């Protein structure tokens, strides 16, 4: 067993003792709210993991099932008055169980798929072929269905100067990668991010060298891969730092999942990386420094579904709301359960279709009642998931939009000469 694995297990077990069993996390957990079975609650899972790690129980089928049903949204952490870091506990379970849990939870094609999908060419192929091939997870189809027409390759490796007549406010590195299915599909977001940032006076560097942030591996307990990817990405940052001297921010375009993983790098590698504070979401950055330019009206009724990791780990959700509330004409209503996971992460709907359905239903009903024009999503995985949901539940008129895209739209509608044609 690797040292990292041992450390994870030890820390996780320690963390279980911090749980005082108060239950405050129960109603924040999407799976508990779906089944009302305490074995599907954070408190229940912690109890099970504790029993597992102390050798009181064997990893039975039912134990694996309940652990595997966790969406790893980490909402429970924000509710916990004792500050239990649940993710440490579930990671410990993965570490302890090794392949056993992933074998249980992830069908073979998903596991193989992960291997395949690190290759940019294969991703491109898969995206175009996925609707016709059998055995492709719904998750993948979601990306294919929501794929934008802009080409990621066209911006990779380029540096975008602040738009003309703008005071320069700093230099940022944008994290995107073509070794990830998400970033190859949702390219419109990448373009919008570049427009918005340059319009706000930032020089935007878009490296070609980044690879997957590592989050999917992490949650499957494949720490070695995750560590390797983290190292690689940090090297990329360092390389650019050396080349350009100062880098003010590392911007993750609306992807709570990636951002959260970046924030874990220090812990994962057990070193100081020195740039943790610089990792921000686009709107989080703009909330901090203030907006330039003319915000044009966007006449829409929108609802929000927060990205779990953007909210529970990066804690950027308030900033996002603050910025978009400035857009004239925008009416923000719901979702009432915006802060509770929609069940998108980790191919959840593929693995647990029934539970995913239960989790999503109240949200669908609310959207129908509100008749929202658009739903704001803050993570690429969320959007892939919702693309399928919109289709499966017949919410045909609901537009899915990233906060940055919304801001982009507002700039497009405003008096901002030159904005539209920048890239």
């Amino acid at each position, binding site marked *: 067993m690797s040292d990292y694995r041992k450390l994870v297990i030890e820390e996780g077990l320690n963390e279980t*003792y911090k749980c*005082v069993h*108060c*239950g*405050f996390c129960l109603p924040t957990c999407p799976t508990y709210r779906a089944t009302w079975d305490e*074995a599907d609650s954070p408190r229940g899972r912690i109890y*099970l993991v504790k029993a597992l790690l102390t050798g009181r129980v064997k990893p039975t089928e039912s*134990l694996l099932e309940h652990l595997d049903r966790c969406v790893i949204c980490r909402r429970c952490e924000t509710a916990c*008055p*004792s500050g239990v870091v649940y993710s440490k506990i579930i990671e410990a379970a993965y570490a302890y169980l090794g392949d056993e849990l992933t074998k249980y939870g992830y069908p073979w094609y998903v596991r193989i798929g992960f291997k395949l999908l690190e290759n940019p060419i294969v991703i491109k192929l898969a995206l175009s072929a996925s609707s016709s091939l059998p055995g492709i997870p719904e998750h993948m189809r979601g990306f294919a269905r929501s794929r934008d027409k802009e080409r990621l390759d066209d911006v990779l490796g380029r540096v975008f100067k602040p738009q003309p007549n703008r005071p320069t406010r700093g230099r940022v590195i944008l994290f995107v990668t073509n070794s990830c299915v998400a970033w190859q599909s949702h390219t419109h977001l990448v373009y919008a991010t570049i427009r918005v940032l340059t319009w706000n006076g930032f020089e935007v560097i878009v490296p070609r060298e980044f690879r997957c942030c590592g989050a999917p591996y992490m949650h499957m307990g494949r720490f070695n891969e995750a560590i390797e990817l983290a190292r690689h990405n940090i090297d990329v940052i360092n390389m650019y730092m050396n080349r350009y001297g100062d880098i003010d921010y590392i911007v993750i375009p609306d992807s709570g999942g990636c951002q959260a993983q970046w924030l874990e790098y220090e812990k994962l590698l057990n070193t100081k990386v020195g740039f943790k504070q610089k990792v921000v979401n686009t709107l989080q950055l703009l909330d901090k420094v203030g907006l330039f330019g003319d915000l044009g009206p966007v006449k829409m009724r929108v609802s929000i579904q927060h990205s779990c990791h953007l909210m529970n780990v990066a804690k950027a959700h308030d900033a996002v709301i603050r910025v978009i509330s400035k857009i004239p004409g925008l009416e923000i209503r719901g979702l009432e359960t915006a802060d509770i996971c929609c069940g998108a992460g980790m191919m959840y709907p593929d693995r647990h279709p029934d539970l995913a359905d239960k989790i999503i239903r109240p949200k669908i009903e609310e959207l129908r009642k509100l008749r929202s024009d658009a739903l704001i999503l803050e993570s690429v995985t969320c959007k892939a998931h919702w693309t399928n949901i919109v289709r499966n539940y017949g919410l045909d008129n609901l537009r899915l939009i990233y906060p940055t895209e919304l801001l982009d739209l507002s700039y497009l509608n405003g008096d901002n000469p030159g904005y539209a044609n920048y890239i």
Partner: protein
Amino acid sequence: MVLSREIINKLISIVGEDNIITDDVELMVYEADGSLVYTAKPDVVVFPRSTEEVAKIVKVAWENRIPIVGRGSGTSLSGGALPIEGGIVISLARMNRILELDIENETATVEAGVINLWVSDALAKLNYQYPIDLGYYFPADPGSQRVSTIGGNISHNAGGVKCFKYGVTVNNVRGLKVVLPNGEIRFFGGKVIESPGYDVIGIISGSEGTMAIVTEAVLRIVSNYESVKTILAAFNSIEDAGLAVSRIISSGIRPVALEFMDRIAVNAIEAGPWGGGLPTDAEAILLIDVEGSEPGAVAEANRIVDILKSSGAYMVKLAKDRAEANRWWSARKQAFGAMGFVGPNYITGDGTIPRKKLPEALYRIREIGNKYGFRIANVFHAGDGNLHPLILYDERRPGEREKALQAEDEILRMCVEIGGTITGEHGVGYHKRHLISLLYTDYELDVMKRIKSVFDPLGIMNPGKIFPR
């Protein structure tokens, strides 16, 4: 107790495969409640979805003499939700619909599994539709209101921070639908302030699930005031803080809430993620809410500020807006849970004492803490004398748990000695049943047992609770 396959099958035929737990590992999750001091594993957990299903389940238990334990969110701090003798745990968690919000008659009708705070949340949404009104809420607000269920609140007769003014749970229940142990469904009360006959609602409330399973309740809801003012005060001495409390209450003002926390409690909260900017250097702090019209609340708040200052508070602050007040209050409401930072385990004491005995009680609690070598944080519902000494220990150290229990025992005996009681809101449950005879004679306890028998002649309802063996 081991249940036969036949009985399990009967239960399955009532609730269906999806609403029953028989797997050993899954059952383990149901062996603990909010207290985590003791555990007891059920033989089966069922999740009925209607009163009728509850009735059928209970009937099976009745016919086979199987213990029944109701369960809401399992946050009981007295071991109330533990199936001490095994048997069937009936989880009400899937019966969680709000059936009716009746503003005209100022009631809300809900199923037992509804989470306390949902009632007020649902009412808040209504206000949106009736902007002329101030809006309504459910005033019985235990610290656990974000998670505990109405059924659990009723069974423990839970208190809250607002109960000095609005009463505890039983004062806010108008009607009750229950399933008796023989499977009969009964309704008591209505949407009315009283009804003829003995107060059966009053006797079932607080009976800790030893008489009947609550399946629905009609709750009293109350309307908001135009304005709420929150005041925070810090003291260098516990005596001064106690005196301030007495003076405020004597002044004729009826604060909605009046909470006291000592230094250890404040420091634990502030160390956690829910810190609210409470002063960590004070020996005691008070958190006070008053409500009324805008001019009325301001006038009351000013009066209180004056009293606090003249009673020796070294810092008095009026919340500048609701956001600040909410930060303070959510810090307070997280108090128990935050002990995980410093404990990590804790036993929540729950005595009530005459308010004027607070300094003495705290002094003696500190002595007991010293004697056993525990740190003890104190959270006190100052308006009503309900004291929560939180005994911090570490379950990983052998023998600590037992020692902590002994310390709690001693503290509760002390509460009785100075004229108080062993539980103000968490219930006798399993933990404190050996202490009930400090308060009642055998004759009196016998009357209680016979009352239980009126409802539960076979003794299958939550056995092993309240009464000493």
